[in-house]
């Protein structure tokens, strides 16, 4: 008994199971020479045309490219570059429908040819035998060569296999009906193909090379035999015509009797299969330096006046191919990319030719009738006889229909090569392959899901563990300090607090805080007798609040002080928008209870500050402004928050806003000025109060507190305000206005502020009835003041809301 290799070289063929004999329909296109198409108006070049990863783009839109210039650069395993098929300009790089049954958009480079067809500089390697294997493989890699038979497997990967290849098979079987691209290529370029095979033989050193051609292509067989006659160990093998003997696994079985193991590759059994077109491309790339930029495409079908093979540049739209052959579409015209058995119907003819496109079929209805209705399986088992992979198509069909994926895998669905032989023979016209394709996609998806869910589980558990660990650590940290040290810590905390207080005071030198504090201290000392207790609590509250504010708003205050409100606005615009959204979101769920609490606190703060101011109105006038400013902005922020939360109560606010818009038109003062204005008014009021501090210290305090609160909730507080004497307030208002006017005179240091104050003062006087409308309850003079203050604040607020750029929400955020 001879060895297997000897029998192979003697020319023995083995039968392969299954197979069908459809009409070949190749004579329409295989007699004419390969036609060279005129340049198409545009080329759509998908970046990825093979199995694997796409390369990195090397070019930009509007760039001029030369023919053969690399457009992408391989960056990982399995990535193959694409090249410009002609010289021209890149008009766009965008996702375009791809040459895939789904036609899902895929990143493509669109080139507008300039008609010159100018080559870039090519580097031929006629003496490739002197190169190292690595260099030669690089040449194949960078020439962008991938399998041109259908799957698009990168050739350089096959060529660099580590396994010992005994049999190199060149697949010229071309078993699918209608396609004759390899046939005519072999007839016309047999020498080049053989030289390409030589390159691969040099790389792989196989024991024998077989060129397999189906016996219905006598011209191709003759041409190839002639071309390789002088070469030892290279034989042309005519194999019986049968579909799908051109399938890789089937061809190996026919030529070598070996079977590729399930899930394996041919290299596992020492065999490597390459396509005829790929060999031609290899020869072009190595000996001439030309990258893969064009291929032979069979353009056939009865709706074409001329059915023939053409040299199509990669990226040529199918439309151009058809138009060149006088395409006369029928109603319901189908255009199929690939052959009738394994190809797919194109959803549009604006799909480009890619490296794996071997045929464009535009059949007439008579030539290829539409499939009939699917009927019930009659269990004739014709499909099992036809299956080249010896599967049980009928069983698979049942399982696919009932989605029993486990059973499908048990029945080796993934060994199905989707040749379509089963569907071809099915008397019930069941589209069996379609069922398998759907099921395969489904199973693959489930596998991906499974992997993903395993990862998610892993991550979830890792996270859980981490959280537990962190909690444990936290618990330990809390445990560590002993009981004796607890007091130490407390005292330390107190010291730290005090230090922080001192620090913050020093940091804001010249600012309000220490002065205010000092003033408070003094005030306390003065009225220690009568007011000690209420004062104490209030001062404490006030200090805490102020400290918090000072820390949180420091940066902003500084900005305000340096009079750069616009910059601050810009910077905070995004944050402000976000917070506005947050507020809107919280509006429904926010509890009303927050508002009063804050109001109380604010009232206390305001009262305390006012009192402090009263004591040193003369000496700290200027310094007061920023302090007030700070406080005001906080108060305003709180007001805004409160407003958002109680939209129901916002009727008055709306009115105020409307009124404010009018004001805004006339005044057109920036928002920071408004703040100053408000601050100034408040300061003025405070100072006015100072005058009567001697006689009605307590009253002043409560009034101010209520005044502040009133700004938040005018109608709620209005009733409370009724109790107060109106005369006092009248006086206060008058004094405030007077002082504001007086301040305007001192324009040296605060020109704008003074100006706006005056304006404010006047505006306040001018709009008592609008204010009254806003408060809509009282008619006393007290209302005038309240209204004025409310109006001012509302105005500022409205302006800020309209611009969506303010400091208030930003301040509010950290709190």
């Amino acid at each position, binding site marked *: 008994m001879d060895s297997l290799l000897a029998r192979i070289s003697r020319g023995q063929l083995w039968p392969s199971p299954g197979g069908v004999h*459809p009409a070949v329909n190749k004579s329409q296109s295989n007699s004419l020479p390969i036609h060279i198409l005129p340049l198409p108006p545009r080329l759509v070049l998908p970046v990825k045309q093979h199995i694997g990863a796409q390369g990195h783009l090397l070019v930009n839109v509007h760039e001029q490219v030369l023919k053969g210039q690399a457009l992408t650069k391989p960056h990982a395993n399995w990535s193959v570059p694409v090249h410009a098929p002609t010289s021209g300009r890149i008009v766009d790089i965008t996702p375009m429908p791809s040459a895939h*049954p789904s036609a899902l958009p895929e990143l493509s480079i669109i080139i507008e040819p300039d008609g010159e067809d100018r080559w870039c500089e090519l580097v031929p390697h006629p003496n490739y035998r002197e190169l190292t294997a690595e260099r030669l493989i690089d040449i194949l890699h960078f020439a962008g060569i991938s399998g041109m038979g259908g799957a698009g497997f990168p050739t350089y990967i096959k060529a660099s296999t580590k396994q010992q290849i005994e049999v190199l098979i060149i697949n010229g079987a071309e078993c699918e009906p209608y396609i004759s691209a390899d046939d005519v290529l072999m007839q016309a370029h047999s020498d080049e193909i053989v030289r390409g095979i030589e390159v691969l033989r040099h790389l792989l050193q196989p024991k024998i090379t077989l060129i397999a051609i189906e016996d219905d292509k006598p011209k191709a067989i003759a041409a190839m035999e002639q071309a390789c006659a002088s070469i030892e160990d290279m034989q042309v093998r005519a194999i019986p015509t049968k579909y799908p003997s051109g399938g890789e696994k089937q061809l190996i079985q026919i030529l070598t009797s070996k079977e590729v193991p399930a899930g394996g590759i041919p290299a596992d059994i020492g065999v490597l299969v390459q396509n005829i077109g790929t060999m031609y491309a290899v020869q072009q790339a190595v000996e001439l330096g030309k990258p893969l930029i064009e291929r032979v495409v069979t353009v056939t079908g009865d709706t074409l006046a001329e059915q023939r093979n053409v040299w199509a540049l990669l990226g040529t739209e199918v439309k151009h191919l058809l138009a060149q052959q006088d395409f006369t579409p029928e109603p319901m015209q189908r255009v199929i990319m690939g052959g009738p058995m394994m190809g797919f119907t194109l959803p549009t003819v604006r799909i480009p030719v890619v490296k794996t496109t071997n045929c464009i079929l535009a059949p007439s209805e008579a030539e290829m009738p539409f499939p009939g209705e699917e009927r019930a399986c009659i269990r004739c088992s014709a499909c099992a006889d036809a299956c080249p992979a010896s599967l049980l198509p009928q069983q698979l069909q049942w399982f696919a229909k009932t989605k029993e994926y486990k059973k499908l895998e048990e029945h080796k669905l993934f060994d199905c090569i989707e040749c379509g032989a089963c569907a071809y023979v099915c008397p019930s016209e069941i589209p069996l392959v379609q069922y398998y394709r759907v099921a395969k996609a489904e199973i693959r998806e489930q596998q991906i899901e499974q992997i993903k869910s395993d990862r998610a589980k892993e991550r979830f558990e890792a996270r859980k563990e981490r959280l537990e660990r962190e909690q444990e650590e936290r618990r330990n940290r809390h445990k560590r300090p002993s009981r004796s040290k607890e007091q130490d810590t407390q005292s330390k905390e107190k010291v730290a607090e005090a230090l922080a207080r001192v620090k913050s005071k020093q940091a804001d030198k010249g600012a309000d805080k220490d002065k205010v504090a000092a003033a408070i201290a003094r005030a306390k000392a003065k009225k220690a007798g009568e007011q000690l207790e209420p004062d104490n609590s209030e001062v404490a509250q006030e200090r805490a609040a102020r400290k918090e504010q000072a820390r949180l708003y420091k940066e902003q205050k500084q900005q305000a002080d340096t009079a750069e409100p616009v910059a601050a606005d810009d910077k905070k615009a995004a944050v402000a928008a976000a917070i506005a959204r947050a507020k809107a979101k919280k509006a429904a769920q926010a509890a009303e209870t927050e508002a009063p609490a804050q109001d109380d606190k604010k009232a206390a703060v305001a009262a305390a500050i006012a009192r402090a101011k009263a004591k040193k109105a003369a000496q700290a006038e200027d310094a007061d402004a920023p302090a007030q400013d700070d406080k005001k902005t906080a108060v305003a922020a709180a007001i805004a928050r409160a407003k958002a939360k109680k939209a129901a109560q916002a009727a008055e606010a709306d009115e105020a806003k409307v009124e404010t818009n009018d004001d805004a038109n006339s005044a057109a003062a920036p928002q920071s000025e408004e703040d100053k204005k408000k601050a100034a008014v408040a300061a003025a009021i405070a100072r006015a109060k100072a005058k009567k501090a001697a006689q009605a210290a307590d009253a002043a305090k409560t009034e101010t507190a209520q005044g502040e609160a009133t700004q938040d909730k005018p109608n709620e507080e209005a009733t409370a305000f009724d109790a107060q004497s109106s005369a006092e307030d009248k006086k206060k208002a008058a004094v405030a206005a007077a002082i504001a006017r007086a301040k305007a005179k001192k324009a040296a240091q605060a020109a704008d502020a003074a100006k706006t104050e005056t304006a404010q003062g006047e505006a306040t006087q001018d709009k008592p009835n609008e204010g009254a409308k806003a408060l809509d309850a009282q008619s006393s003079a007290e209302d005038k003041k309240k209204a004025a203050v409310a109006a001012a604040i509302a105005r500022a607020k409205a302006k800020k809301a309209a611009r969506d750029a303010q400091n208030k929400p930003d301040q509010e955020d950290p709190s």
Partner: protein
Amino acid sequence: MMILFYALCALGLLALIFGVILGFAAVRFRVESDPIVEQIDAILPQTQCGQCGYPGCRPYAEAIANGDDVNKCPPGGEATVKKLADLMGVEATPLAGGEQAEPEKKVAYIREDECIGCTKCIQACPVDAIVGATRQMHTVLIDECTGCDLCVDPCPVDCIDMVPVAQTKQTWKWQLQAIPVTQID
């Protein structure tokens, strides 16, 4: 009569011996965790979304093992219900809440210029698929996101969207009848 007595004795003795063996085996070879829970957990999609009412997939798996309904997992869809029903030997019931049979796969997407960097979504994410730090913009690792929705609610500025996963050629499924496969001679 004696024969009957001997027979009863022999059987009684055998029963006793086997009873002791079984009793010993039950103690000696005791399985700590219920293996059914592992199996159920493997079927669940591990989105950890909590839509079943349990804090994660494993707690739900334990609940099913203890007799809870198998139809409370919207991310898993009908397929998961079917598998769980097969495993537990119960009737496959439609999803609770009348969800669509095949839930659309989604991933979270953070509108990054609106993110304020609050880290609330990071804390909510059960699979650590959100990266970011305080006052820094956050972003979602799409490959790790299970589409569980848990980050959407905590976001104070509503800047997280659930975006359907785009279909690619890898995830595309053939449509039946897309290709006319028929007799051509």
